[in-house]
């Protein structure tokens, strides 16, 4: 596979996408709002929690399931500090797995289905770009922007949280932790690649963009399961769990890419022109 050909497809698609504000705005705004909004809420918790009794209600299971070394860290903290620490470091972490999926879903659903709708696909398929190069290029145009958005969101989240919680934790900077770094730079890309690969594959098989997007929503379910697992305390994203998930999703990425290229049929795409 010639990477430069995949990059050529990426550059062409990105040029088109960046001129379409209807696509760009939701990709940029939603994650950035979340990354500012969540830590600000956390910063406001102490003022809401005054006179409300125990602020740990609902977090007991999550706290009980935390690794022992984390529980040791929590030992000397007040209830408000524990709640903010747990929410900031553990509770919200899996939401950052959803950001690349949300950000990439519009672009990856549009990858082939949009070209079919706009009747540009035939000339593209007639070029000597191989199936693998074409497919990988289409994946890159979803993957690169969504990961940039995720990393920027993470940086904003970290900065806003550390600033708002600076006083409460007596000048201690809580983020980033090793878990977060593994999650953002290891797990988020592998999860995103699996989802993007499947969505691009669906996009090549269906007639139009809406059909592709509707089907691709199903792909959020496993990731939402991870989120709820963490929220309920059933799964705790410690370094080992994250590394195991990176390995698992890395394998899934490879399998999805191989299967997608094998199932990629130019003829099928042309006969399903909208």
């Amino acid at each position, binding site marked *: 596979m010639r990477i*430069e*050909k995949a990059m*050529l497809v990426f*550059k*062409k698609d990105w*040029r*088109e996408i960046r*001129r*379409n504000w209807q696509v760009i705005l939701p990709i940029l705004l939603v994650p950035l709002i979340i990354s500012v909004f969540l830590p600000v809420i956390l910063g406001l918790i102490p003022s809401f929690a005054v006179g409300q009794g125990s602020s740990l209600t609902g977090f007991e299971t999550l706290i009980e399931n935390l690794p022992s070394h984390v529980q040791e860290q929590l030992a000397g903290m007040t209830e408000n500090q524990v709640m903010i620490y747990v929410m900031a470091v553990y509770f919200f972490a899996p939401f950052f797995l959803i950001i690349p999926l949300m950000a990439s879903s519009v672009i990856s659903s549009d990858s082939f289905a949009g070209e079919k709708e*706009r*009747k*540009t*696909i*035939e*000339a*593209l*398929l*007639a*070029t*000597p*770009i*191989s199936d693998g190069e074409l497919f990988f290029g289409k994946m890159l145009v979803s993957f690169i922007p969504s990961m940039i958005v995720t990393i920027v969101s993470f940086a904003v989240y970290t900065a806003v949280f550390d600033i708002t919680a600076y006083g409460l934790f007596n000048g201690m900077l809580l983020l980033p932790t090793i878990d977060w770094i593994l999650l953002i730079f290891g797990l988020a890309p592998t999860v995103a690649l699996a989802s993007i690969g499947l969505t691009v594959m669906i996009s090549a098989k269906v007639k139009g963009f809406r059909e592709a997007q509707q089907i691709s929503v199903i792909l959020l379910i496993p990731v939402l399961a991870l989120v709820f697992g963490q929220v309920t305390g059933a799964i705790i994203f410690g370094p080992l769990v994250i590394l195991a998930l990176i390995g698992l999703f890395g394998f899934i990425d490879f399998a999805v890419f191989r299967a997608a290229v094998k199932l990629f049929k*130019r*003829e099928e795409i*042309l*006969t399903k022109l909208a």
Partner: protein
Amino acid sequence: MIPVVEANELTKTFDSHIAVDHLNFKVEEGEVFGLLGPNGAGKTTTIRMLACLISPSEGSAKVSGHKIDENPIAVRQTVGILTENPSLYERLTAQENMDFFAEAYNLSEPQEKAIRIRELLEFFDLWERRNDKVATFSKGMKQKLAIARALVHKPPILFLDEPTAGLDPESAKEVRDLMETLSQREKHTILLCTHHLEDAERLCKRVMIINKGKSVVVGTPDELRDRIAGKPKIQINLKKLDQKIAEAAKRVSHVEQVDVDKSASKLTIVLDDISSGTPEVVKSIVDAGGLILSVYTIRPSLEEAYLKMVKEKR
């Protein structure tokens, strides 16, 4: 001559529908070959098989010596294709569209690419609009840009699918003129799919009429016309026509039949040999005192030939 496109029993079936039915033809190097047929005849399916966009159900084909089922990437590199729709990226400029396709077809060396793109955009009169988004172009301009895109990597073979379809007469003429210049100046081998007989008549050396996926006839436009026209005819318009002049024409050895239209002062004459017979007929009429206003050969149009052949096969 070497055939650069060769189809052998090329067949395509979609479920139970036979779109292309055992087509056999050869296109020689430098030739403009027309695929003529009504909508749904199988022209686009044939081009898509030859461009390795879809695979044949039966039969085989070679393009520039490459078998379409064995080396599709080499085939795609060899051909330039104008698809049914212009297939242009409307949010990109003309220059960006050309840049993308140049690199996709492996024309990556920056200077060579820039020269080629400029040459084509100037040739198609689009250079001044190179930085405008394609969405702002007229239909004719988009079609010209799509042809320029097909030529960007200097392909020896061009597949043009309905290049003048949907264009107003002025734009259609402009595109036709450009194609004529292309075939003469750049010596491309062109496979032209059309149901516009004017395109085929003006541009093609040979045409194949296909109907319901089957080949009806292959030949030069003149051969197809002659095939339905039967023996050659001439029409002579006179200032005044009388019986003596008509009799003089009938006595010429090459003349087989004379139709006399006294009201229009016109003779329609069937000859066994047009080149020898015409001067003799003219001489005999002049000798008989006839004043000739005009003499011309009656030939059916390609359209008449096409309609007759398609009708016969229904």
